[in-house]
């Protein structure tokens, strides 16, 4: 899986029960509760989808396959909503 980074126009704040994400360009705001909040944190720190899935299976007590699927779907949703962009490959 690839790495992502937050879109330039996105700001976020960590709160007790999750992460509040704001798209400053559109004014769209969303609250991510767990386990999506953990995916967000690991993604914006540039972790790969594989690593996120590995950690998420422990964070959310998911089977590995279930975790991979959730991470892939969630990252895709973050990208389609414009919160994350795919990092250019330098390899």
């Amino acid at each position, binding site marked *: 899986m690839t790495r992502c980074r937050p879109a330039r126009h996105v700001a976020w704040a960590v709160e007790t029960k999750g992460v509040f994400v704001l798209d400053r360009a559109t004014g769209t705001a969303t609250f991510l509760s767990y386990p999506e909040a953990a995916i967000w*944190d690991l993604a914006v720190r540039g972790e790969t989808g594989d690593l996120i899935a590995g950690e998420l299976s422990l*964070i959310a007590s998911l089977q590995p396959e279930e975790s991979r699927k959730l991470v892939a779907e969630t990252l895709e949703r973050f990208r389609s909503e414009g919160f994350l962009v795919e990092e250019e490959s330098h390899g």
Partner: protein
Amino acid sequence: MPSSVFVVPILDRWLLHAPLHRVAALINWAAARECAREGGPTGLGLSGQLAEALSGEAPLVPRPREGPVRPQFLGLIPTRACNAACVYCGFGSVRQADVMDPKLAAAAVDWMAEHAVRCGRQSLDIHFFGGEPLIAGDVVDVAVHRTRAVAAEQGLTPHLEVATNGVYGEERARFVGDYFDTVVLSFDGFASIQNRHRPLTRGRASFEYVAATARVLSTSSTELCLRLCVADDNVDQLLEIVDWFCEEFRPAGIDFEGLQPTPESERAGLFAPDPYEFTVRFWRARQVVLERGVKPIYAAAIVEEPRITFCPVGNDTLILHPDGRVSACYLQEKDWRARGLDLYLGRLAEGTMDLDACAIERVRHLVADKPRCAECFCRWSCAGGCHVNHSFAGCPRTYDDFCLQTRLITACTLLEALDQGELAERLMSDRASMERLALWPSDRLEHWEDTHD
């Protein structure tokens, strides 16, 4: 008269302290003599208020815990590995060491959450120690998010705390600032001091990393506490250091710790500060810190609530080691063993916490027996300091440097609470009076006639 009433000399006056009654008073020689002769203020008609406050049995005698285990918090040691090579390190940190399996960390958090719910607690308290815990980044990631996820699910408030050296990049520092409620960052002062006390491996400088981390944390929501180790080479700069800390990093607190000498620190030419100089410099630095709205901490002189233990030991705290063993203390096993102590409490394996009830009882009671503290007015506030390094069974009965500075700082703290800050200042400027107080042979009121000159 309860035997927990103490009297110590403050210049030409006497400080009466009854910590279990939460009473302190400044009295003169005649009143002290009458108290001692007549069995205390209750027999005197001295002050109605004082007599009333001290009448009867002490209502607040701290005792070893009883009943089911109720951990104050769960401590995790993700690894003993560390990327720093502090010259006085007492944590046995090495560059390479075992790392906790993240599954173990997750299981520990689950156990603590279930326990918190069962006990009706409101919060889920997880603390990280090392080595340098952030070296094991994946363990910390899993444990932090598992804590927050489980807390949200169970209606608990997560409280995450970490003791760290701050030697990592900006991104990790931002994570720490965003996700930890309290960060205790070890930072000993200006570049020359920090790099001498806390070099990285191969003697490289740590200052720029730590200062950069402190700056990131200072702009985050975390409660930043700077832990400042005071040695003979930075004690005379305390005022300037804390002034700079407050200005540059806006911490919530500054924790002052006198250097605990080790063979390593002595080989490096670093020594504990003179206890009287430490006290005077600390007291001045404390005023500066208070004026800046920052909390000064000297952990052995917390007088608000009587206590039986200085640290997590005896409070049922569970510290999980990388291999799954659970102990009462985050120091190394070889250090406890050297003092004849066994602080292991059990083991966490395959999701099951197996605690040894006898071990828990043994540790609960070990904190109650401190012969060195028997005559000291600080016995219910300092509570003997570290059980492994300071008040272990068989330790000398005489006061050491830690005792001397703690006695002085505690007295000044009590004086300030009595609105006698000026007297505390006068005491600090009179070395002979400081020595008289610090070395007073027995503070117990019933020994007053035998001890005073």
